[in-house]
Structure formats: C-alpha cells, structure tokens
C-alpha cells in the first residue's frame, strides 16, 4: 500500500467518524469538534493527494491545506463564541429542536 493510499483510507475513516458524530451528538461542543475532525480528514486527503506521484511532491495541495487550516481555526473560534453566547442566553448546550 502506498503512503498516499494509506492516508486516503485514514481520511475516509475519519470523515465517517466525524459525520457519525455530527449526526448523533446533540451537545454543541461535540458537534463543533465533529466538524473539526471532518475538516482534518479532508486536509489529510489533500496531503495524500500531494504525494500521488511518488517522485514528486505537489505544492498546491499544501497551500490549500494551510489556507484551509486558517479558515477552520477562525470558523471554530466563531462557533465556540456563538455556542457560549447561546449557552449564556438560554442555558442550553444543544439546539432547541434536539430537545427530547
């Protein structure tokens, strides 16, 4: 198994876990975490793509991953602030329609 194929498989598994988490978890922190795991799986796939030719490393996916990480950090930061604000306003850690 090449390195690229291995990383791709790991990325697939990670994204499966992330989507499972996003669907089953109600707690907002866990959902934000799931989105982050999903993002990392995509980044991993991009890194794997950069090595799809064993003799040559493609720099473009690396640039994409770097940009992607920056965006993911800011999105996570905003999501956390929003979740905090939501908690302080309502005392809830999950969205209203998820109430049982």
């Amino acid at each position, binding site marked *: 198994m090449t390195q690229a194929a291995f990383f791709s498989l790991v990325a697939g598994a990670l994204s499966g876990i992330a989507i499972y988490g996003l669907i089953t978890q109600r707690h907002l922190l866990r959902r934000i975490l799931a*989105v982050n795991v999903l*993002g990392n799986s995509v980044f991993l*796939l991009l890194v794997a*793509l950069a090595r*799809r030719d064993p003799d040559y490393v493609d720099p473009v996916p690396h640039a*994409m991953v770097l940009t992607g990480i920056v965006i993911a950090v800011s999105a996570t930061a905003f999501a956390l602030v*929003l979740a905090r604000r939501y908690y302080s*306003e309502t005392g809830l850690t999950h969205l209203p329609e998820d109430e049982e």
Partner: protein
Amino acid sequence: MSGVALPLSFFVPLLTALVVFVIGVRRAYGVILLGALTTLAVALYVAYAVAVGGPQVHYLGGWEPPLGVELYADGLSALMLAMTALVGAGVTLYAGPYLRGKGHDGERFWPLWLVQWATLNGTFLSADLFNLYVMLELLTLTAAPLAAMAGDRPSLAAAMRYLLLALLGSMAYLLGVALLYGGTGTLHLREAGELAGAEPYTAVAAALMTAGLFAKAAVFPLHIWLMPAHSNAPAPASAALSALVAKAGLYLVLRLWLWTFPALLSAPMGWLIGGLGAVAVVYGSVQALRQPRLKQVIAYSTIAQLGYLLLLLPLVALPAAAVSAWHGVVLHALAHGFAKAGAFLAAGNMIYCLGHDRLEGLRGVTPYLSVTLLALGLAFVSLMGLPPSGGFLAKWLLLEGALAAGQWFWGGVVLLGGLIAAAYSFRVLALAHAEVPHGYAEIRSPRRLPPAMEWAPLALVLLAYGMLLGGVPILELLDQGAPEGVR
C-alpha cells in the same frame, strides 16, 4: 484599466470594512457611503467593460495559474456583480437610519456587511475552485454573525444551526474539490471541466460539491436553517442574506454544472436536481402561505424562489429549451434579488414603525406606510411572476423553454409556483387593504420613517421593473462568455 476593476470590486468594500473597523462607525459613516458608491461604480464599470470587450481576466499579483489566482468576469459574473452592487447600495443606504433608529450604532453590522459584500464579489469573480471555497467559508462566517445579531434565543439558535450546516457543506465542497484536483491536476473552473470527462471520480466530486452548496443555499431538503436565520436577522441583513448570500450558493451550482461538469448532466441527473428544485418551489410557497409574520413569509418565499433556479438543469440539456431556460433563470436570479431585498426592507419599515411584523398589524397602516406598502406589493407581484415585472419576463422565458422542448411538467411547476406565490402574496396584501377591526384603538401613532428608509425599498423593487425596458441589453451581456449550448 478594466483589468484593475476586477480586484477593485473585491478590495474596495474590504478596505472600507477595515477602515470602519479601525476608526469606528461613528466617525466613518461617510467612509461607508463612499465605499459603497465606489463599489457600485466599479461593478457597473465591470459590467460595461464585459458588455463592450467580452470576458475580462485578471491574475492577482501577476501570478498565473496554477499557482496564482485568476479573477474572471463573463456576462454572468458581471450581471451578478452589478445586481449585488445595486442591492448592496440600497442595503447600505437603508441600514444607517435603520440601525440608528433601533438604538445601536451598527459597530458589529458594518464591518460584517462590507466584508460580506467583498466576499460576494469575490465569489462571482473567482475562476478557481479553491478560491471559491475560501469565499464560501467567508460568506458563512459573515452571514452567521449577521443572523445572530439580534442576540436573542431564536436568532442565536438559528445562527448556530446555520453555521454547523454551512460548515458541513463547505467540507463536502472541499472534498469534491480535492477529488477533482486529484483527478485533473487543476483547480481552474473551466480547465477542470475540459480535463474531467464523465468518469466516476468526477461524478462523486460533482455530487459532493453540489450537496455542499445545497446546504449553503438552503435547497430542499437542506432548507431548515433558512427561515429562522433570515427572518430573525435585522432587516437589512435579511435582505442581503436572502437576496444575495443564499443565491451565491446556487450561482455556483449553476456555474459548476454548466462550465465544469456539463459532461455529467444526463437526463436523470437533471431530473433529480430539477425535482429538488420543484419540491422547493411548492414546499416553500405552501409554507409561506401559513406563516403568521411578514418576514417569515418572505423568508419561505426565498426557499421557493431559489428552487426555480434549479429548473435550469433538466432543461439546459435540451437544445430547444436551453437558451430560453438559461436566460429565464438568470433573469429570475436578478429579479428575485431586487424584489426580495425590497420586500425585506419593506418588512423592516413595518417593524420600525409598529415594533413587530405580525401580519395582522398590517390592518390600517396604509396612511403611514403607503410607499412601503407599494414597494411590498410591487415586490410580491414580481415574486409571483406577473407583468410588468422582471419576474414575469423570467417566468415567460422559462415557460417558453419548457414548452418549446415539450417539457410540460417543468412548465407546470413554474405555473403552479406562480399561483401559490399569488396566494401568499395576496394574503398579505389583502390585510393591508382590510379595514381596522371594530373597537380597535391605536395605542400610539406609528413612528415616521426617515426618507432613506422610505424610498430605498421602492427603488430596489423598481429595478426589477426596469428589467422590462432593459431585457435585451441584459441578455446580450449574459451571452458574453456563455458556454456553447446556451448562446
């Protein structure tokens, strides 16, 4: 000169946002207006340059693809850019007095809105799939805080829901881009289309990107976030979100399917996506019919109206229908932009004057809000596609395409959607005509509207009617750089 205009349309609102953020809104109100007007001028100039000289290209910083980012404006981009600029100028003029009247200075609103405007322009001008991802994320990151601005429980929940779904959508989109890049080695929108045939990995990439964009554009069945998010935002933000941001997602869907994945556009695929659009048209309209508040009606109407745009995909593969349907869909996007922004701003006026937007409150407000109600009525007429509005021209062209190709089903969807839209519109307008119930005493006379708020909605809506005079030049502009099948 024209090359510089493309980056300018992105950087002018962005720089304005920075200045406003640094020196504060109170001292920068003039800067905001100046920035908005400059952006409008630049956007109109881009449209003019494309109309005269064909598609415009600019490489940021002189770096050519694959490493550099290409900005590209064809007829479609130019039209979306111009529509965004006109709506944006209206929203900007409106938001100042609205926010002042609601008692806050818009410290949070202005930078977000200006960055959002820049991002919208960037979305329409990018020819690079990854750059588009960045723009999509920025759209989410500006739209979610705008939706949360009211800071109460429903708007925070709505923003949170929107944010999670939109982030999921972005990731799906990025995954699709990664697959496409892995297969073709390019991120360029058209080049990727030329290199990628109808292979399995392109199909997966197309599915992922489309699904991701559907989440961002609130296409049925990923629509749940839209109504609460758009109806709880402050009125100028609602106008921008509904008229522009959600549409940017669908713009990209159409762009991808026509420019990058035309090889995949088989009849079943067209039916699948068009079918989702048809369900959205009917579902959104029926829901709009049942809402108790004006902004909710208008927000559900957005879900329905965006559905029309997807009806292009089953029609565009049929030569008899392609050109009419394409023209119709783009006119629809433009007319909806103007009418929807006008409608939300009109609803904002109602909230400003009465303190709420429950439909029952429309009884007896005619003397105070006559200009606003006129704008609202005209906006609804365009949304239901009746003459002499731009919405009517769009409906005519879509119908003509569908009937020319013998596609009576899609024609029926267009007509049915118009009828239900008429039902929810006249439900609202009838209340504005209804007499005040017996024994009703006015607690306090409604507030007077500042002139900018009174006239901005009407001006925006009238732009949708101006399309009746400008239909031919608009469609000639659209033909600049359009793909072979739809010219």
